[in-house]
């Protein structure tokens, strides 16, 4: 609670006047010589208890009435954001969530959540009077002093972006700023509480809390959350992009808001190098994943475009940008001795007549020389490498390549980054090792983009070698032993599959598992070349390198030049062509629960002001002097009622001077 006329609060001291008068009156008693003392003593004894309590209540009512009048005169302001614990605040640090999800509107015709929260903060700051406002927005992460709250919603640093927010980092930044700022301060976190922005599992929260606790004057933390219902919304996002010859394969996902029911038809507009086409997509439920093939102009080296859906509740999630470069063959290397196994591997890596794929088999001895940077994937069906070959493989992995290790078929103690093969084992006579459990959402055995599963359960093995190492299996044999494991090396990934496509080992060569697995690895390895044309906002690739300048070259929407580094679009960074999209985490609808918020802000004694369902209420603060006047009236009426004589029937004192009682 704040006061527009705080000086009048001095009149609160007047609340003590009734008590002082009472005490003075008690001291200023008059002495009287009294005869009827026996009644006085009896009355004094009997008047204790209820009478005293009544008198105390009367005094309390008088004091509170005066206090309420003084408070009302001081023009109190109650703000949900400021709360009742407010007072004179020197600095307010506003941590503003400028992520794409903040642009959703609570209802048709209303402002976005970001605009609503800015208006509320502006009004609250106007009530605070002379408090200093410092903005740390989620896009730039920089502290910026705001000269006047009135201009808050006109600043480029409060404008909409396609970025995500990183609240542990923002809170740490606020703590750093306040460490150098004396005086009483408050931190206001304005957000839609999107779980992905708050990163509850992030270890940096502990550091942020510690930094806040270490401040000489602990700031009050207030969370202004804008949640609740929203207008209907759909979003489109690009899951992947790959050029295959003169086609661009775009993996898309169209999401509908949680309230949407039934199927709906959404027009999807594709813009490629200036030409637009529109088609209708039928979305059967909440989401639709599809692969869109876009024919590229003949002999096109590179280009860009976007996919969009019509404007709706959130204008920031209706477009996905893409860019592409020259066609690159999917090159792979098979390191294996010649034989049946190598043959199956070659067929799986470059099936005849299947796209622009190239493969080459080399013996393990020549592997070191054959490993080059333009390879998409390497299939290593030999004892684990050592020496130069291991170094070359390590370098390939680090640069983003994918390597599939298959068992050497013989016992081997060689290790590669603490990973090794167990000795070969055979299934009991008449039985097989069957793949029974695999990850359907991650890895080379995951379901297709349209949800079609891989028939991995058809894999049966007579012999196997178990990959050993501290990793999480992505597939297991029926007996629980790992069949497929993964180890990530910086940008690249190494995979270990526990059997080989040889009829004396398994039916891996039947293509149910081997073909999609190897093709996906080659695609993933090759994507790192295409990925240089697509990045998400906030990633290292989206930032300017020394000597580069940024320009946005697409024609979608109304770009804000002052905010271009935080907006999705087709950007030219120096010589680089880059399609920048909002981070996928912005499309996740999960909202932070109160329990999680309690845990991540533990010890800050934060106040949560949830504006859920109150988007139409423009004010965070209210003038509540009337309430205090009503309170004063209440106290005065109570005092009057307490002062009323009791209604109990009192017998009259016998009249003096009646005619004498005659008993005769």
């Amino acid at each position, binding site marked *: 609670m704040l006061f527009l006329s705080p000086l009048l609060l001095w009149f609160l001291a007047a609340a003590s006047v009734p008590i002082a008068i009472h005490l003075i*009156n*008690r001291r*200023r*008693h*008059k*002495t*009287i*010589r*009294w*005869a*009827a*003392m*026996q*009644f*006085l*003593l*009896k*009355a*004094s004894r*009997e*008047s204790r208890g209820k*009478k005293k309590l009544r*008198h105390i209540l009367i005094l309390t009512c008088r004091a509170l009435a005066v206090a309420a009048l003084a408070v009302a005169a001081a023009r109190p302001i109650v703000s949900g954001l400021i709360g009742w614990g407010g007072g004179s605040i020197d600095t307010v640090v506003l941590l503003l969530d400028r992520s794409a999800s903040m642009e959703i509107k609570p209802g048709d015709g209303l402002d976005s959540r970001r605009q609503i929260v800015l208006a509320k903060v502006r009004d609250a700051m106007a009530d605070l009077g002379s408090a200093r406002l410092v903005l740390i927005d989620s896009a730039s992460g920089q502290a910026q002093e705001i000269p006047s709250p009135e201009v808050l919603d006109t600043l480029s640093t409060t404008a909409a972006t396609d970025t995500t927010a990183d609240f542990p980092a923002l809170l740490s930044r606020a703590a750093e700023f306040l460490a150098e700022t004396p005086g009483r301060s408050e931190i206001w976190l304005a957000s839609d509480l999107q779980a992905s922005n708050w990163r509850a599992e992030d270890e940096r929260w502990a550091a942020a809390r510690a930094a806040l606790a270490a401040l000489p004057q602990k700031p009050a933390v207030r969370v202004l959350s804008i949640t609740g219902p929203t207008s209907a919304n759909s979003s489109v996002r690009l899951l992947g992009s790959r050029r295959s010859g003169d086609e661009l394969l775009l993996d898309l996902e169209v999401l509908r808001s949680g309230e949407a029911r039934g199927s709906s038809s959404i027009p999807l507009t594709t813009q490629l190098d200036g030409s637009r086409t529109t088609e209708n997509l039928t979305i059967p439920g909440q989401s639709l994943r599809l692969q869109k093939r876009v024919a590229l102009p003949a002999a096109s080296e590179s280009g860009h475009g976007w996919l969009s859906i019509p404007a709706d509740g959130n204008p920031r999630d209706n477009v996905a940008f893409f860019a592409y470069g020259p066609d690159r063959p999917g090159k792979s290397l098979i390191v294996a001795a010649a034989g049946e196994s190598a043959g199956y591997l070659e067929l799986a890596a470059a099936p005849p007549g299947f796209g622009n794929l190239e493969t080459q088999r080399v013996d393990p001895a020549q592997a070191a020389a054959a490993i080059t940077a333009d390879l998409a994937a390497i299939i290593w069906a030999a004892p684990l490498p050592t020496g130069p070959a291991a170094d070359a493989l390590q370098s390939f992995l680090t640069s983003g390549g994918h390597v599939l290790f298959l068992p050497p078929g013989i016992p081997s103690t060689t290790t590669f980054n603490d990973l090794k093969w167990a000795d070969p084992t055979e299934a009991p006579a008449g039985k097989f090792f069957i793949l029974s459990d695999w990850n359907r959402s991650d890895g080379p055995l995951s379901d297709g983009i349209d949800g079609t599963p891989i028939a991995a359960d058809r894999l049966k093995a007579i012999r196997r070698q178990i990959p050993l190492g501290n990793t999480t299996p992505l597939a297991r044999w029926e007996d629980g032993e790992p069949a497929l494991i993964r180890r990530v090396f910086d940008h690249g990934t190494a995979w270990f599959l526990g059997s080989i496509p040889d009829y004396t080992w398994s039916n891996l060569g039947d293509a149910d598992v081997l073909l999609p697995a190897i093709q996906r690895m080659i695609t993933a390895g090759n994507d790192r070349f295409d990925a240089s044309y697509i990045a998400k906002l906030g990633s290292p690739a989206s930032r300017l390198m020394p000597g580069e300048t940024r320009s946005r070259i697409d024609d979608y929407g109304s770009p804000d030049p002052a905010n271009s580094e935080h907006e999705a679009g087709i950007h030219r960074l120096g010589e680089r062509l880059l399609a920048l999209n909002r981070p996928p985490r912005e499309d996740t609808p999960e909202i932070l629960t109160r329990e999680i918020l309690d845990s991540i802000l533990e010890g800050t004694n934060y106040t949560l002001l949830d504006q859920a369902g109150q988007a139409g209420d423009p004010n965070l603060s209210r003038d509540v002097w009337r309430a205090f006047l009503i309170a004063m009236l209440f106290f005065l009426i109570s005092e009057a009622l307490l002062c009323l*004589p*009791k209604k109990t029937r*009192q*017998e*009259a*004192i*016998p*009249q*003096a*001077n*009646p*005619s*004498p*009682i*005659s*008993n*005769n």
Partner: protein
Amino acid sequence: MHDFIDNDLLSRLGSLPIESRVPMMGNVAGKHRSPHRGSSVEFAEYRKYVPGDDTRRLDWKAFARSDRFYIKEFEADTNLRAYFVVDASGSMNFAGGGESKIQYARRIAASLAYLLVNQGDAAGLSICTDKLHLEVPPSRRAAHLERFFSTLGKVEPTGETGLIDALHTIAEKIGQRAFVVILSDLFTDTAALGEALQHLRYRKHDISVFHLMDPLEIGFEFDRPHRFVDLEDGTSLVAEPNLIADEYKTALREFLTKVRAKCHDASADYQLVTTDTPLEPLLRDFLTARLPKSKH
């Protein structure tokens, strides 16, 4: 001249006799009924002669008519002896802004004593505290009044009340029936008061009680806290009168009810009198109420 004597008042009340409610046993003939049958002028009754009767009182005419002996009896009139018992305890000194209770008692006692002596009756005075018991024996002589007034004027109320002891003493000491007028605020134990009145009643005295109270004692209206100092024993109490007024009045009401009941039980005339009451109507009503019905 004493300040508690109002000659005008006395002259106005002079026409009203003071009557006794019970037959008196005076020493000399007077205007009051006597319990004895005697040779007065007013025939009372005939009764049969019994041996031992004075033969001089035989009605010979009745004997001649009936051949039986009858004694003719007449009402005997005698004088009245009045005792004024004035409570001189410290509480009688209270004056809530007007006249003190002792001063008011003086005026009542002096006025009635004057009227009694003036009509040939005797008036005596008894002044009591817990330590002092002054007494002026009753006398019919006019010169006696000066002694009566002088003693009354010298009374200085102090200490606790000695009323109960004084009443018992009077009841025991006065052999003949008398008119006992009690002037007090009766701030004493009501049970003991009842016993004392019953004692007087047993001795067949005519009792009148003037219960004197100050208007402030009854109204108990104050505008600020007060320190109340007991006039009798000096104890004090600081209180907010407004807070305890209800309880005070309840206790007072109980006290007055008890006192009235005790007086009623002892067949005593009881008057609750506040000290702001004009004396003339008070005494006129008192005297008029005591007149025999036929004289009204």
